[in-house]
């Protein structure tokens, strides 16, 4: 990757244009009749609105040619790393391959040209997409019905928690305003609960990394709206007591919310509905292969089970029907998987994670040695190279050194249960050779740290920029050009 240091504003030259528009509304026609009843003043915006409603200040947008735009953004793209660039083992993000046929389908004008308020009889195909995806997700998750309004996973969580509150309100049980969240939960869980006006009660994990059922019991009562869980949890461990947890929570009158961010290892193997979950969000941009787009657009459809169905009142959390373009991609992926391949998706993802874990546990601390699901967490290097007068290599150093070797780094310093967390998720779309290359590099980095941690401290060396000064950026923020 080469460093390119321009902002589009810096390419601007007064009078240069990158647009191609007709000169005037009726330029194509020199029809005298038009001019006759089309008063000249209305040709310009100033004629249509009084001066005090118009923009006073100059609009300082770039003035660049089409070639400038194409080169600039092509140059920017070349400082970026995506799944198509290389291995992207970012834990809890499920960076699987994004099939190209999905893009072709999602960009089809027979879908992209539909207005969201068009009458039902003119959007039958679009509706079939949504209905078909609903049915497929229900089959895969064991839920009854999905709403597609949420535009991301966290948006789904929020929508799902609103459904939880509606359920209790509809049953005259509105005093349930607390939600239990494990300490290992994704940060979005407590944040979504807070936005939904719920009080968060944290339940501790045991030494085995799983929710401690004995700690859970005293928290349950008539004020509990439900529990939010992801299973497998963020340590990549299956919450094996989920059956008992479900019974306890249901007996106290609460509901079980499933954070579908970690659904990938269960794809084709285990259904959240069967484990007793009542409400869940599915991250189509994770489990169903739609591209992450540098941080969206995603889609976080929310499913409900039998218990909630009679009280279903779908909260309008986005403007129209949700991110339809993302739904198209996910549905295409599911049709390619079909009933046959779906059964291998989760198991192959789990296989890759366990293969890496077992291949590296002699170099990196593995706090919980049991079989993992789609991801697992190391707690830093076994030998970080620390010695008299020299600090050891940290997880951040390992991550940055990985960039030098052409890999994206795993998720780091999450979950918060460990100080040096390195969370690795390979997904099912990576070959044995790719995993072996990654393992070899991770071992090499461990050897470098043991030999001289300074090699890691200075990393990365081969990227367009080195480590940034994040402190100054936050203290004296420059947020616009």
């Amino acid at each position: 990757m080469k460093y390119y240091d321009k902002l589009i504003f810096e390419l601007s030259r007064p009078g240069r244009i990158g647009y191609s528009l007709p000169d005037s509304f009726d330029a194509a026609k020199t029809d005298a009749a038009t001019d006759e009843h089309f008063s000249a003043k209305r040709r310009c915006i100033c004629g249509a609105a009084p001066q005090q409603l118009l923009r006073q200040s100059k609009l300082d947008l770039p003035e660049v040619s089409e070639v400038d735009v194409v080169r600039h953004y092509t140059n920017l793209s070349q400082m970026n790393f995506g799944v198509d660039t290389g291995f992207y083992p970012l834990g809890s993000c499920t960076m699987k391959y994004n099939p190209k046929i999905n893009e072709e389908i999602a960009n089809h004008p027979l879908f992209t040209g539909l207005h969201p308020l068009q009458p039902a009889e003119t959007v039958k195909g679009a509706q079939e997409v949504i209905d078909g995806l609903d049915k497929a997700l229900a089959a895969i998750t064991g839920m009854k019905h999905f709403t597609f309004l949420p535009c991301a996973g966290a948006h789904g969580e929020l929508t799902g928690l609103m459904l939880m509150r509606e359920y209790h309100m509809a049953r005259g049980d509105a005093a349930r305003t607390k939600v239990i969240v494990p300490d290992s939960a994704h940060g979005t869980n407590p944040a979504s609960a807070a936005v939904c006006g719920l009080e968060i009660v944290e339940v501790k994990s045991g030494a085995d990394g799983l929710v401690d059922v004995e700690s859970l019991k005293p928290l349950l009562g008539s004020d509990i709206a439900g529990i939010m869980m992801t299973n497998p949890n963020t340590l990549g461990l299956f919450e094996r007591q989920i059956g008992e947890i479900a019974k306890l929570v249901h007996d106290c009158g609460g509901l079980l919310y499933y954070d579908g961010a970690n659904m990938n290892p269960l794809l084709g193997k285990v259904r959240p509905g069967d484990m007793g979950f009542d409400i869940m969000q599915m991250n189509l941009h994770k489990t169903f292969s739609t591209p992450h787009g540098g941080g969206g657009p995603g889609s976080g459809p929310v499913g409900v089970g039998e218990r909630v169905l009679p009280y279903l009142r779908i909260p309008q959390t986005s403007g129209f029907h949700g991110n339809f373009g993302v739904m198209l991609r996910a549905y295409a992926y599911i049709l390619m998987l079909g009933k046959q391949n779906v059964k291998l998706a989760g198991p192959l993802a789990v296989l890759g994670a366990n293969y890496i874990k077992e291949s590296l546990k002699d170099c990196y601390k593995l706090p919980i040695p049991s079989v993992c699901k789609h991801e697992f967490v190391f707690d830093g290097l076994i030998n970080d190279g620390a010695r008299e007068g020299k600090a050891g290599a940290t997880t951040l150093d390992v991550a940055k050194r990985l960039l030098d070797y052409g890999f994206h780094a795993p998720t780091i310093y999450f979950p918060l249960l460990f100080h040096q967390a390195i969370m690795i998720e390979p997904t099912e779309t990576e070959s044995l050779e790719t995993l072996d290359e990654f393992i070899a590099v991770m071992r090499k980095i461990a050897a470098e740290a043991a030999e001289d941690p300074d090699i890691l401290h200075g990393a990365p060396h081969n990227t367009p920029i080195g480590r940034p000064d994040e402190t100054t950026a936050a203290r004296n923020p420059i947020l616009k050009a």
Partner: protein
Amino acid sequence: MAGFSYFPHTDDDIRVMLERAGVRNLDGLYSDVPADFIYQGEYDLPDAMSEQQVRDFFEKLGEKNTKLKVFVGQGAYDHYVPAVIPYITSRSEFLTAYTPYQCEISQGTLRYIFEWQSMICRLTGLDVSNASMYDGPSAAAEALRMAVASTRKRNKVIVSTKLMQNVLDVVKTYLKYPDIEVVFAWDVLDELGPDVAGVLVPSICRHGVIQDLTGYAEKVHEAGALLIEYCDPSALAVLKTPAEWGADIAVGDAQTLGMPICYGGPYAGFIACKQDYMRKIPGRIVGQSVDASGKRCFVLTLQAREQHIRREKATSNICSNESLMALWATVYLSLMGPEGLRKVNELSCAGAHYLYDELLKTGRFEEAFPGRPFLKEFCLKPKVDVAVLQQKLLDAGFFAALELDGYVTFCVTEKRTKEEIDALVAVVKEVAL
């Protein structure tokens, strides 16, 4: 194993990996899952399709939709999409990346977000923006939450019923659960009081009328509340900016900046605010910095507001936003520049006024808001049977004359030609009075 193009594993690979993992077969990887929860049945899904079958399947579905000439807006505007945009946004380095956590290999994403933030600030005249929101309506709801968080002991907001219905619906939904009192009012200034944290008004109302917000900021600020303006960012090339009206926060939907209408999404919301509220803004923010060698670089910044650090004390739960759609808008604005964007507005405005005049001439409508200024969207009072009118238009391939509050609404973008408008008017003339 039958083989599947997205799974690279050969039988040998699987054998090698199982051996290292210390299990005998793939089922062994689920030994920690109680047997009851292993799904034994067959998934109720179609048989796996080949790529060609999938393509044909969607082709057939696509053909079940009716391609219409769109003459309706109401939050989704059929503007022209320059060819450069899908070309750039489909570059896989952008498309297949995630949130730029590792800034050293994400300078592409970080730079375009910085450019997007800058452009949103320049359009609105405000100081700070973020990496984007899900859509306009949810951005409006988040802005109201921001107002409550930014003012002391005030838990009430006033929302103008001149906003589009989907904005009202989403705002109502978002604020119901954290128990923020929402007053919906046509004349928002009448509702001001000491407990009001924020006031949300549109710059163009649902009926298309450009709003005169003279005096709003003064009155709202006098009452100790924040003024939030919902605006169409495309129209800000010509209309008075939120900063010029004295607004504290601006929100809206960036769909008008070159995004296809795509049955309602994906679009991108935007939010911008005055410097004072910088630390209350939700979501990702990109800032400029330098690396160790002094090179200019860009990083995610002010993260202490966010969910992954602050958990339940975060300003919002939003993390993933609509990054690629922000790129979409950034490329659009780069291509358009100040003159192109002005021209888009002028062409749309000219077409809309032409249609307005022609429709009135048919004698089938009366003016709904005589003398009130509009840009590309307007309402008329129908004198004909609306159902008949709509059906005739549909039959002729037009989506137009959507019913709204007893009126019918139309919208004309620069994409609509004079021929199309004339053809639409000809259809209207066939509707019996």
